[in-house]
């Protein structure tokens, strides 16, 4: 169902185009993904699983989880949640691993002339979200040339779907909506010696003498980019939760629901069960209500709401029950969610017999945490360390966000799960640290004051009770690192 009126967003849909799905003609809009167009046309099953032939829909909607693979124009395993819809496309439900494409089959790409990829740059930044863009802007302030690479066609990372006003300090974008922060960062980038390379995937990060080499994929073409320093701002992936039928189409990650409704203006369903009462679960529930979707309940296994009370209050006063000490037992339905059964849990998190309740929902939204995307750092030789408070395995890094591989930095959610506000400040610090390395005669005073400002901002954001977890996690991480640079700086 397409959203027609929205309090925050105007959906500027492109030209209406026709495409084919399993032999039927459907219409979608230019500029949306194949998965979004199919969802708007009520198609939920995108493929069948490899071994048990179970129906699968999309889950993450940001090109991470492979749940949405379909055969498009005879090319199998196309990630339809990030592939733009084109007029005349032939889209087919994929069974199992698909069939190898016949010779000559090729997925249609954009009409725009492909930009030339440079062969070398002082600083390569992977990810054009809040951390990556901030890194490019702050490195740029000290004169460092950079290339910012992102696999999406639109820069901004997850900011492009954050319709709510940000918290934090007025000095750092508080009160501004996430969607507008993304636009401001992209604008700021324009006055920097930075180039944006969208629609480009970084496949690998290797040693290349005294520099690093990135292997890139853009429009089906491979390229190699040499960089003296690399900042990884690759974000995070959504966690899944194991319960009966958790793979049924209609069980979506909270980020996927945001993508669908806030980027493409497609309602994920009519009645939603939200699993997870952290800030993401609460915020997305509110956004669902804004999109005209009913939220039957928000549940959380913890005995307290994890997110801010003010976010909980916004949905509670609209009548949405927030059920702490509750879990989901199963989802039911033939090819899509038709109901979900929840139960109360005791103090050992075991479901209480007799407390089961079946809710009439068509969507189950999972907001049960994120895991850092640190694969490229590990590939480059960074040590993986497990820090539960940062979301699992993270690449070992110091206060400058530099990993144990000199010249490879990591910032934002990729370095530990926090918020976009902290990601922007971490990006600044990584950009400044990279600039210090690349520009030996950089203005030391300017560098020190910009660094201090970002560190103070991070300190403030992490100071309260809600910042305890990342604060503890980051400190544990820094304790692991013999931070010789701190000694060098005399701090």
């Amino acid at each position, binding site marked *: 169902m397409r959203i027609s009126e929205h309090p925050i967003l105007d959906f500027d849909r492109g030209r209406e185009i026709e495409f084919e799905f399993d032999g039927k003609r459907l219409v979608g809009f230019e500029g949306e993904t194949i998965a979004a167009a199919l969802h708007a046309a009520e198609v939920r099953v995108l493929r069948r699983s490899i071994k048990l032939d179970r129906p699968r829909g999309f889950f993450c909607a940001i090109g991470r989880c492979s749940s949405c693979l379909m055969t498009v124009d005879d090319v199998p395993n196309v990630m339809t949640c990030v592939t733009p819809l084109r007029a005349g496309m032939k889209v087919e439900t994929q069974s199992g691993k698909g069939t190898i494409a016949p010779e000559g089959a090729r997925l249609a790409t954009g009409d725009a002339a492909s930009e030339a990829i440079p062969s070398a740059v002082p600083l390569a930044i992977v990810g054009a979200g809040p951390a990556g863009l901030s890194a490019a802007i702050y490195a740029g302030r000290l004169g460092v040339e950079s290339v910012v690479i992102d696999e999406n066609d639109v820069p901004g990372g997850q900011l492009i779907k954050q319709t709510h006003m940000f918290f934090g300090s007025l000095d750092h974008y508080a009160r501004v909506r996430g969607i507008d922060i993304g636009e401001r960062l992209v604008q700021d980038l324009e006055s920097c010696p930075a180039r944006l390379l969208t629609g480009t995937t970084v496949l690998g990060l290797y040693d290349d003498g005294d520099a690093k080499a990135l292997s890139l994929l853009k429009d089906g073409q491979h390229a190699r980019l040499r960089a003296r320093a690399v900042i990884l701002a690759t974000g995070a992936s959504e966690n899944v939760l194991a319960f009966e039928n958790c793979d049924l189409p209609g069980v979506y990650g909270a980020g996927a629901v945001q993508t669908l409704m806030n980027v493409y203006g497609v309602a994920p369903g009519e009645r939603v069960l939200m699993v997870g009462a952290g800030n993401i679960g609460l915020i997305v529930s509110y956004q669902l209500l804004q999109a005209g979707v009913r939220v039957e309940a928000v549940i959380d296994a913890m005995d307290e709401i994890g997110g801010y009370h003010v976010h909980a209050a916004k949905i509670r006063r609209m009548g949405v029950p927030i059920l*702490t000490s509750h879990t989901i037992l199963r989802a039911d339905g033939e090819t899509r969610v038709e109901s979900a059964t929840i139960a109360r849990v005791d103090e050992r998190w075991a479901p209480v017999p007799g407390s089961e309740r079946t809710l009439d929902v068509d969507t189950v939204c999972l907001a049960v945490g994120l895991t850092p995307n640190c694969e490229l750092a590990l590939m480059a030789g960074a040590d993986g360390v497990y820090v539960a408070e940062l979301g699992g395995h993270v690449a070992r890094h110091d206060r400058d966000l530099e990993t144990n591989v000199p010249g490879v930095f990591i910032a934002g959610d990729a370095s530990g799960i926090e918020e976009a506000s902290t990601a922007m400040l971490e990006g600044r610090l990584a950009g400044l640290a990279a600039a210090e390395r690349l520009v030996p005669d950089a203005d030391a005073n300017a560098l020190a004051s910009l660094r201090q400002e970002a560190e103070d901002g991070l300190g403030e954001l992490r100071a309260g009770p809600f910042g305890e977890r990342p604060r503890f996690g980051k400190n544990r991480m820094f304790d692991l690192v013999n931070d010789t640079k701190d000694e060098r700086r005399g701090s």
Partner: protein
Amino acid sequence: MDHRRDGILRLEEMRGQLPDPARLARGPVVVVECVENIPCNPCVAACAKGAITIEGDINDTPSVDFEVCDGCVVCISACPGLSIFVVDASGEGDTGTVSLPYEFRPLPEVGETVTALDREGSAVGDARVTRVLSSKALDRTPIVTIEVPRSETMNVRHFTRKDAPR
């Protein structure tokens, strides 16, 4: 700390942060329902009169000088948590008003009868819309004022339009 379990703030939990009956009787005044230490401060700058302050760092909760606040409603749209309201329980009759942030479409019209909701989302009764502010400066957080029984001005915190699906 019941609000941590169910998302509903009780008046007892806001003791010390609310305007007293004498102040309420004098005219419109702000009610800031922000009781947790979260990193946030836009409300401070939103008040041109300086009625809202945050001592210490940005994680401290805001304090209001109810003698300085004149209930002008500007701060309502500035709060990222949508937790600021203005109540007016000063009139002659049995009614008062509540001004609240309303980020939904369609917006109600002045004179329209809506259903007032409390912090739990339970219907309190009918309310009449007396003002709708929706300027560019409010950045897509319109402020709607509704007229409710005076005894409900500290309970009503949202409303739903009569034709809205529920």
